[in-house]
């Protein structure tokens, strides 16, 4: 076991796979030389594999994704970096109309074997450098969505993503990059659609992913010690495919559900999870489910405003304790 940072674990996964398969390449903006990635995720990759396999592109996000799409049709596995999740809107067509539909439209002749890595989440950079847009892509059949909440998961999920054979959106989080996990020395991967039960409990099921899983873990620890409440915390790790069985099994045990996400409340991932639980587990619920999410407002730059809009640990504690009637 070694302590490894989230950003380093993603790099390890990519470099291990690149060493095995010369058909894996990286494309993005400022990823190869100089910056070596805006957040340093691709640091050192160019030194090892050269500019031929890690390709710096001009500022043209649509063509970054297009480059990945076209190359994948010629049998190359491409990992594309979009510097901030917000910039993904510039290449929306390539993801939604091309990558997601290629397999179906071509009758299985082609598929987009691409991974799109991009960091989201609020870290004080304002409305166009802070968003969590995963729910937009959940709405599009044909896309697969991973959101690792820690370094161990990040490496294991990236390994799966690269060899998944379908287009994968790999949502990283700006605030997780320097967090550390124990990582085994031997190789491992984490399958998609396999939730992680972070904490077992019996009073309420909390579903949280990405950075919110980390905050929820903290919040739940406080709630357990302050109120003696027993919380089952589940990190789905991937939203598509979603390990609904694990969530349903938990809700059937606890009778209560809270979802926590950093994307906005309206039309969020939590809405989908809650709707399915109410459709399929209604008889087991002792109370209506509860969603904790960002408020329906662009992420502000100003700290008081940001605190009010984006969920934080205090708000998670407050809302869960209110939901459970804890005093």
């Amino acid at each position, binding site marked *: 076991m070694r302590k490894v940072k989230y950003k380093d674990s993603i790099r390890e996964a990519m470099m291990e796979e690149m060493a095995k398969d010369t058909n894996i390449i990286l494309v993005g903006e400022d990823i190869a030389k100089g910056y070596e990635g805006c957040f340093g995720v691709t640091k050192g990759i160019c030194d090892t594999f050269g500019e031929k396999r890690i390709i710096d592109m001009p500022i043209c996000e649509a063509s970054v994704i*297009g480059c990945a799409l076209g190359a994948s049709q010629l049998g190359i596995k491409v990992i594309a970096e979009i510097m901030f999740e917000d910039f993904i809107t510039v290449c929306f067509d390539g993801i939604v109309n091309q990558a997601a539909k290629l397999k179906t*439209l071509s009758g299985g002749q082609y598929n987009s074997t691409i991974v799109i890595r991009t960091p989201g989440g609020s870290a004080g950079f304002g409305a166009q450098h802070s968003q969590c847009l995963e729910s937009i892509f959940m709405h599009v059949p044909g896309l697969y969505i991973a959101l690792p909440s820690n370094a161990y998961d990040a490496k294991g999920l990236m390994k799966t993503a690269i060899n998944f054979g379908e287009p994968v959106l790999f949502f990283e989080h700006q605030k997780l990059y320097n967090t550390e996990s124990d990582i085994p020395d031997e190789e491992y991967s984490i399958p998609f659609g396999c939730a992680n039960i972070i904490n077992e409990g019996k009073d309420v099921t909390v579903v949280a992913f990405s950075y919110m899983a980390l905050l929820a873990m903290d919040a739940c620890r406080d709630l357990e010690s302050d109120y003696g409440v027993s919380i089952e915390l589940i990190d789905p790790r991937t939203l598509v495919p979603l390990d609904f069985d694990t969530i349903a099994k938990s809700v059937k045990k606890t009778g209560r559900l809270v979802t926590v996400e950093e994307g906005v409340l309206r039309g969020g991932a939590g809405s989908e999870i809650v709707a399915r639980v109410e459709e399929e587990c209604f008889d087991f619920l002792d109370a209506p489910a509860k969603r904790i999410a960002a408020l329906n407002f662009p992420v502000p730059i100003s700290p008081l405003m940001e605190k009010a809009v984006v969920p934080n640990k205090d708000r998670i504690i407050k809302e869960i304790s209110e939901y459970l009637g804890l005093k």
Partner: protein
Amino acid sequence: MDFMDIENDLMLELYRKLFLCRRFEEKVYQLILDGVVLGSVHLSTGEEAAAVGTIGALEKTDYILPTHRGHCQHLSKGAEPDKLMAELAGKETGYCKGNSGSIHIFDRENNNLGSNGIVGAQFPITVGAGMAIKYKKLNSCVVCFTGDGATNQGWFYELLNLMSLWQLPVIIVCVNNLYGMGTPYSETSLASVNEKPRLFKIRSEVVDGNDVEAVYIIMKELVELAKKESKPALLECLTYRWMGHSAFDQRPYRPKEEIEKWKNLDPIKRAETKLISRGIKSNIINEIKERVNNQVEEAASFAINSKFPEFNVSMQM
């Protein structure tokens, strides 16, 4: 025979393809009216020489990205008329198992990377195809088709920049049929299509797009440069679409004289005249016509007699 003329055998083959494209499109139109061909369909009657001449200069190992108005491009690259017609009819025997219809046809066997329902979306994908050819050191080029209208999309300039910066073996073939849907090109841009690549130091050529021989000859040169020296280029083929933008467009925006003028420049009649002037007997031409007529009739029957695919809930993604 002119020094620049191409051999009679090749000219006959190009003629066969022109005639196949024409008959195929005519049949498609009839099958739209019959309710057999489904969805959004864009015919390229009158524009056949641009597809046949450019793709005629390619090998099977070269790649193409056709446009939404792409039937002639698919056929020229080697698509079988029956599987193509079946796809247009949404049948399971079609190229894409009936999932695609007319505007997004893929034919992997012939290195056809697929046409696109999003006008201009082929540009970013072309970047990747060109990059991959270089990465894998393939002796291939990629031809990205576009209409005149799509050259106003922002993606077009990203492609020009990257094919120039990386010196990709990419040739953009612009089938300039004068209209983007109902809007004349002249009302959409002050720069002509062939001027646009020049800023990026890309070779740019214009050709009479209704002269299949002229198209073939210039394309052959560009393909050789792309494959041997990885030199990108753009070829603008000046032509005209006889039919509406889509099958039900009555074309009120176009003057009658304009249509008549271009019908007089029919690429198929011109190719036929050339063949006869070079001593090809009319019975040989008639044989080609008969063979193609039968082939297209068979394609229509194949499409009509094939089954629709069925949906299964497990297909959900």
